[in-house]
């Protein structure tokens, strides 16, 4: 039976040297969005980030797990090159093709107190799956 009341949310999980990001939501897209919020939360408190800048992201991959890896790595790239932090994400996925908008602002070291930069998403604990109640989980370890 589908669980209709689950609220999209994110969490971190333990890794000895680094940190795991996990999005949990009723849809695959929302699970990807929440995993990305979890990634921001590795760096800073997402509540401290505004949404004055929007960045479009597209990627595609042969399966959902590689798609999650690409999605997070695209965000890591955009953050690094444009000097941004993201707060909100809108993701659409069709036939292994992801198109998304990430909303955020330029890093402000005083305001955001960024703890650590992310080197990349990894295959470790990389899983995208649907629970028996229909909820989607999207997770991986990020190397910091």
């Amino acid at each position, binding site marked *: 039976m589908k669980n209709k009341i689950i609220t999209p949310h994110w969490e*971190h999980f*333990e*890794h*000895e*040297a*680094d*940190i795991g990001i996990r999005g949990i939501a009723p849809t695959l897209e929302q699970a990807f969005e929440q995993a990305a919020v979890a990634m921001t939360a590795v*760096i800073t408190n997402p509540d401290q980030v505004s949404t004055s800048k929007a960045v479009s992201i597209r990627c595609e991959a*042969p399966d959902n797990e*590689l798609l999650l*890896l*690409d999605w997070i*790595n695209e965000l*890591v*790239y955009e953050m*690094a*090159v444009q*000097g941004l932090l993201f707060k909100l994400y809108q993701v659409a996925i069709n036939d292994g093709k992801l198109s998304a908008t990430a909303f955020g602002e330029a*890093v402000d*070291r005083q305001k955001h*107190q*960024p*703890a*650590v*930069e992310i*080197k*990349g*998403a*990894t*295959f*470790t604990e*990389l899983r995208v799956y649907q629970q028996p109640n229909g909820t989607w989980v999207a997770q991986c*370890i990020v*190397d*910091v």
Partner: protein
Amino acid sequence: MDTSQFVQRDETSWEIPPKGNMRVPAIIYADAQLLQDMDQKVYEQITNVASLPGIVEAAYAMPDAHWGYGFPIGGVAAFDPEQGGVVSAGGVGFDISCGVRTLHTGLNMAELQPHKQALADELYRTVPVGVGSKGRIHLNHDSMHGMLRGGAQWALEQGFGEAQDLERIEEQGCMAGAEPRYVSSRARDRQKDEMGTLGSGNHYLEVQRVAEIFDETVARIFGLRINDVVISIHCGSRGLGHQIGTEFLKEMAMSAAQYQIVLPDRELACAPLTSTLGKQYLGAMRAGINCALANRQIITHLTRQAVAKVFPGIHLGLLYDVSHNTCKLEKHTMDGCKKDLYIHRKGATRAFGPGHADLPAVFKETGQPVLIGGSMGTSSYVLSGTAEGEQRSFSSACHGAGRAMSRSKATKQWRGKALIDELAAQGIIIRSPSMRGVAEEAPAAYKDVSAVVDIADRAGLARKVARLEPVICIKG
């Protein structure tokens, strides 16, 4: 983990004999306590490494081994191209050629003491550190190419450093065989404003005091005396290395079937050394090594500028520069014959012994300096490579303490400001743009580096020369 899974070979080495798909044994250097404290994932990962094509002798884990990506961090493995050997992006890691460089200052603690705060402020002002920091150098297409080919030698040509620095850097500061054409435009994009930046996480610049000498003779040759002040820089290839790792990891994972490689873990993604993909990765990874060597060279230059403002006329010479995330072609003796092998060191330091042909004359009798970074607030160590390390671990030693606690647990347990005050009371000055970053790097979140170094010494991987204590730490 459970020590009964191992055959204890001697006081400091534990073997997992080949079983299942393992082609060679796996050997962990540790005492019973360190082994018990290691995550079971180290067992899984080191046995997986032992199953890769073309691996020779054994898969080794150093005393600081912990759960990594495919390879354990602290993993060492040698591959023979003539036996179908592979190169693995995960076996090098995301931060290609991350390493430690130590500089002499010629000062002693009494001379530093009155100027500690001023030096901390000057270093923090001069060396870009932390998330979002940019370097003052902007690379265009041509300068990027030169940097990727030339490493620290390129940096020297740009006016960063002194000619005599080069002989005290592995590969004399320039990794041969770099192929910039295999470094993507995205990897270059991530690097063009990041030259001469420290980064974040466990990276740092530290002013240290020589607190203890274990081997007077070697310490004298290394130029270390009790109470001397040295400066150590720990950082790597920044965004460029991370992007090379990200891209090749995925490509190797997706191409494994094409090369008939069965991966027990996708993170072990690899390609035959003789394949097109393997050669492309080697070319890009070597360019990544040059990026790290150039980066540490530029940071050295900035450090010299900062220190000279507080101590006019001072000269900072290199002790040595080591890398601990690499795959290098080296000659090693197997069954009495010299063989060309590709040595992966993931979170492990090269530790060539006395007489090695690649060492400068000054270290011919001592073996190479092996620089082991501590964590903020804890000791670092200087060791020297041994002759027996060749047989024990393809001349490799540990690289640091390794985390004992996750970042999220650390932030729950400590507050950055309180830690800084606590360390200040011990005479250690911390400068960092992020209080949370400081909490995540709390000294107690790491294993006891002294225990790790003791085992490396007792196992003969490298010999203890000196212990360094932090005085000032500039933290990302």
